[in-house]
């Protein structure tokens, strides 16, 4: 075996040959929409909207709508480019095998053109409608997700989502910059919060879909280091995440409504992380605490950002 090949290359080569053949039919619009991962986009759009709503100063509703639209389109573009690059490993995982590219409903070139076109469109529209700092951060977030996370890190290191998680942390920064034209401490703390939230969120998921990642040769932490080490890392990342969540209140950048919500939600997160740590199961069926933590982590971020907006607007 060629030592320069990375882990999982053999499995990928088998599927790449079929995936590179374009499908005979023109792409269905529903498949192009599915490329943008609309469900994942909701959290991105929500955190971007909250960044925009808590920023000081006015923004015209038309420009605010355009800024959020650009964040959504940028996230969709990054997701399309991610699926273009990962079509081979998506075909090997049960969770992703039905996506348009691995299922053969769409050819890779269409996905690439769609993703690149949408990227340029979202960044240029953001620059024209709001300001070029917001557009630049949006461009960085797309490039980071595609080049740093998808192409560079994901197949190489179990730290993929630790560093790659930064890509999903940009939206509140973009929303804030769209209003103010600059970056301040509060949006940077919100960036840090999502950055530190990403590893426990994805590691909880990767614990109970471990076999999927192993089959595709993706070196997620449970595949490389085992379930026990992953559970410890989940707890270790939960602690600074909770600190980042409470920091806006502790630094006087948010009021008591947010402070109370952040403390209560972070304690609940910590309790679930401790339950995950106590769990010794290796079979997905027995991983109820992991599934609960994964589901709660989504609620956690929605509730925390919602509380920040409520706190600011009260």
């Amino acid at each position, binding site marked *: 075996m060629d030592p320069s090949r990375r882990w999982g290359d053999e499995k990928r080569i088998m599927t790449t040959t079929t995936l590179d053949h374009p499908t005979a039919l023109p792409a269905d*619009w529903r498949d192009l929409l599915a490329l943008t991962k609309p469900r994942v986009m909701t959290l991105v759009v929500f955190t971007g909207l909250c960044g925009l709503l808590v920023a000081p100063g006015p923004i*015209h509703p038309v*420009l605010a709508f*355009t800024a959020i*639209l650009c964040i959504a389109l940028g996230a969709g573009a990054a997701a399309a480019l991610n699926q273009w690059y990962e079509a081979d490993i998506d075909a090997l995982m049960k969770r992703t095998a039905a996506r348009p590219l691995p299922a053969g409903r769409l050819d890779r070139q269409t996905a690439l053109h769609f993703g690149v076109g949408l990227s340029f469109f979202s960044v240029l529209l953001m620059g024209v*409608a709001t300001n070029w700092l917001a557009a630049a951060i949006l461009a960085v977030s797309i490039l980071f997700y595609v080049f740093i996370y998808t192409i560079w890190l994901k197949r190489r290191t179990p730290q993929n989502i630790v560093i790659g998680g930064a890509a999903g942390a940009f939206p509140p920064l973009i929303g804030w910059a769209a209003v103010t034209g600059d970056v301040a401490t509060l949006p940077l703390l919100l960036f840090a919060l999502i950055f530190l939230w990403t590893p426990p969120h994805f590691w909880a998921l990767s614990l109970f879909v471990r076999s999927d990642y192993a089959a595709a040769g993706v070196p997620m932490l449970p595949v490389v280091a085992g379930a026990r080490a992953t559970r410890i890392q989940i707890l270790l990342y939960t602690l600074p995440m909770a600190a980042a969540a409470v920091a806006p209140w502790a630094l006087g950048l948010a009021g008591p409504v947010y402070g109370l919500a952040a403390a209560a939600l972070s304690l609940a997160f910590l309790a679930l992380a401790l339950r995950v740590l106590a769990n010794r199961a290796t079979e997905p069926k027995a991983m109820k605490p992991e599934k609960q933590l994964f589901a709660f982590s989504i609620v956690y971020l929605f509730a925390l950002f919602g509380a920040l907006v409520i706190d600011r607007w009260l």
Partner: protein
Amino acid sequence: MTGSDEREIRRRQKARAIILAVLLAAFVVLVYAITITKMSVSG
């Protein structure tokens, strides 16, 4: 290529053309709204 394949291709092409037309119309409206807003804000 069978008759049903051709019908499916036509159906997809038509659906994409309609959606593209709607998106282009929405884009025109959005650019108009952004222009008017920016003019009123700077004015």
